[in-house]
């Protein structure tokens, strides 16, 4: 009896604590005005994005609410982990439970479009504003536009001036791969660490490798070309000689940045989203060098606003209004500043530059960036990308030579 009472007490205490804490949810849930159950009632729209780091009190959530209000509807926003969002979108699409607006990473747009769960601008009557072609191309398949970008980001080479000075390296001398490797040699000889990047076996790894891949002049349809091999050889040599740490094989872009933050490294390849952090640390940035000089084309990052297929097509009207509102110049500059992205239209970019002239190198980089699924690669890209990062992993970990790894990659990607 005594034990039974003890259990009842413990159980009741747990339950009470749980309910009390859960009731605090009223103050901070990820949605705003919620629709009951899973089916949205008329007038209540659903919005999925890959930003779980922003909750209902963030600027991002507020701008969504404002745009929804101006379209005359209430909206429920949910932030999901970006790596699981594709699967969720497909699962929802299969059950005709798609959200009204879906914000996804740009290389995934073609996958979702080919699955048939996204509407084209013909279907949803969305008017695409001023968007640079190179960025929009990720959302254009067979001349049909499936979405508009919320902003863009890309990669560049951050450097630590203190470390470079201590090693006697002049940043202006770094113009191509040879000079970069020479600088790395000098830096490691002086007792510091060379360069850090992310070569992990996910899309992030491919993303980070592409500026070198394209910088050598290689093409994604030909993974085993000599140019591609030279790019992979560059990285492999760096790791072998200790200019880049072994941990790059498992680094995400975040952990790579954390290595750079220790102050030991001279260089880090990372993205626009770190610029605020870099400025705080006193680090500067130059474009990633191409093999023989000039800037290497970097891939475009950033998400696209898409309108999934709905049974009730009259919903597209309000959805399109919300999307237009979110991508309007005024809102997009505010949003992109929050996300640390670069705007995608000339007018918006000018506004960003006017407010913050230090953005110039990033604006320039975005203007020459390439979309990964562009050149009509579309749904071929995911397979190619997976083989590319696998090859990089094999070469860097010593399981295969760059040539063999890329040859295997090309035959698997066919």
């Amino acid at each position, binding site marked *: 009896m005594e034990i039974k009472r003890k259990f009842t007490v413990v159980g009741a205490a747990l339950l009470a604590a749980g309910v009390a804490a859960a009731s605090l949810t009223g103050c901070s849930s990820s949605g705003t005005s919620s629709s009951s159950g899973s089916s949205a009632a008329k007038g209540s729209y659903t919005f999925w994005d890959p930003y779980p780091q922003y909750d209902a009190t963030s600027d991002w959530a507020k701008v969504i609410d404002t745009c929804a209000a101006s379209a005359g509807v209430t909206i429920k926003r949910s932030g999901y982990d970006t790596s699981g969002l594709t699967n969720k979108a497909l699962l929802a699409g*299969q059950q005709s439970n798609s959200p009204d607006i879906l914000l996804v990473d740009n290389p995934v747009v073609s996958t979702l479009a080919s699955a048939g769960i996204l509407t084209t601008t013909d279907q949803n009557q969305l008017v695409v504003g001023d968007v640079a072609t190179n960025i929009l191309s990720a959302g254009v398949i067979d001349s049909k536009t499936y979405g508009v970008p919320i902003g863009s980001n890309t990669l560049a080479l951050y450097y630590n001036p203190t470390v470079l000075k201590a090693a006697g390296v002049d940043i202006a001398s770094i113009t191509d791969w040879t000079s970069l490797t020479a600088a790395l040699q000098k830096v490691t000889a002086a007792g510091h660490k060379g360069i850090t990047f992310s070569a992990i076996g996910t899309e992030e790894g491919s993303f980070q490798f592409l500026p070198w891949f394209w910088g050598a002049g290689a093409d994604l349809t030909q993974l085993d070309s000599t140019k591609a091999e030279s790019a992979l050889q560059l990285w492999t040599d760096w790791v072998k000689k200790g200019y880049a740490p072994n*941990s790059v094989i498992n680094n995400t872009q975040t952990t790579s940045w954390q290595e750079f933050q220790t102050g030991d490294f001279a260089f880090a390849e990372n993205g626009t989203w770190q610029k605020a952090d870099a400025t705080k640390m006193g680090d500067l940035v130059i474009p990633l060098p191409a093999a023989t000089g000039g800037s290497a084309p970097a891939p475009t990052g950033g998400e696209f606003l898409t309108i999934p297929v709905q049974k009730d097509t009259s919903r597209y009207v309000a959805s399109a209004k919300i999307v237009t509102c979110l991508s309007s110049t005024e809102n997009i500059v505010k949003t992109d500043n929050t996300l640390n992205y670069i705007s995608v239209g000339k007018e918006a970019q000018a506004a960003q530059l006017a407010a913050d002239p230090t953005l110039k190198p990033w604006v320039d980089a975005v203007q020459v960036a390439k979309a990964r699924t562009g050149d009509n690669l579309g749904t071929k890209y995911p397979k190619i990308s997976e083989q590319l990062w696998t090859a990089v992993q094999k070469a860097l970990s010593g399981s295969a030579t760059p040539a063999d790894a890329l040859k295997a990659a090309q035959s698997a990607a066919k």
Partner: protein
Amino acid sequence: MTAQLSVPARRVRRRGGWTAWAFIAPVVIYLLVFYAYPLARNVELSVRDYTVRSFIDGTAPFVGFANYRAVFANPTFGPALLNTGLFVGVSILFQFSIGLALAVFFVRQFPLSGMLRALFLVPWLLPLLVSGSVWSWMLNSDSGIVNSFLEAAGIGQINWLTSPHWSLFAVLIANIWIGIPFNLVILYSGLEGIPLEVYEAASIDGANGWQKFLRITLPLLRPVSAITILLGLVYTLKVFDLIWIMTRGGPADSSTTFAIWSYRLGFGSLLPDFSPAAAVGNLLILVALIFGLIYIRTQSRLDPA
């Protein structure tokens, strides 16, 4: 007397039959809806050729065993099979023996034994995202604490997570660590169930500690050990989160098990490929099934009642 009892006995037996099924019925329905249905869907996914489009509109063509044949022919199949075998075998071996050793250690009360035993279960509470991440952190080639210790001890840096030779070891260590609490709990309670009189009788007969362990403890613990090992096998076969977080099955498939491979095919790239993923998943279930059958066979041989 007998006549009076025979009528209630018959009534009880019939009532027992109906009541017995009434007690079980909820679980049977539960099993059908929540286990049979996803399993059936998975089998269906594996015998059709699903693209993302046909996943949405349901028009995938029936391809029979083509997906399975492709899986067997895939170059990853061999390494995945080997890694799965090694991973499961070594994990169970160490989880069980360390768990048993600890259970034996704790079975006689000593000061603080209750609290220490409870503390041993803490690894179990952590979400796998966290355990996996902590181990990743500790085993990092350059900034990991384990390598710091190794370098201090003069052994030098080991690339735990990034070398094809060491990646399987790294995930094994983490998995053994996570599995010890489960084994400890079950084996401990099994040990507690062995009455002390048996040991005392053996002491009187002159048996020493090791002999008592081999001749008394192990045999009496057999049913508990069997179920612990079987469940451990089934759970270890399914292990996915840990390896995914630590190495993603890499580099170059060196730590890829069937569970990892299945997930990677389905969700590891930007373009989900559900059919081969489902095929590998079903192969996994098949392997677990075979172990289950072996267990049943061993059980019935040990315990003919």
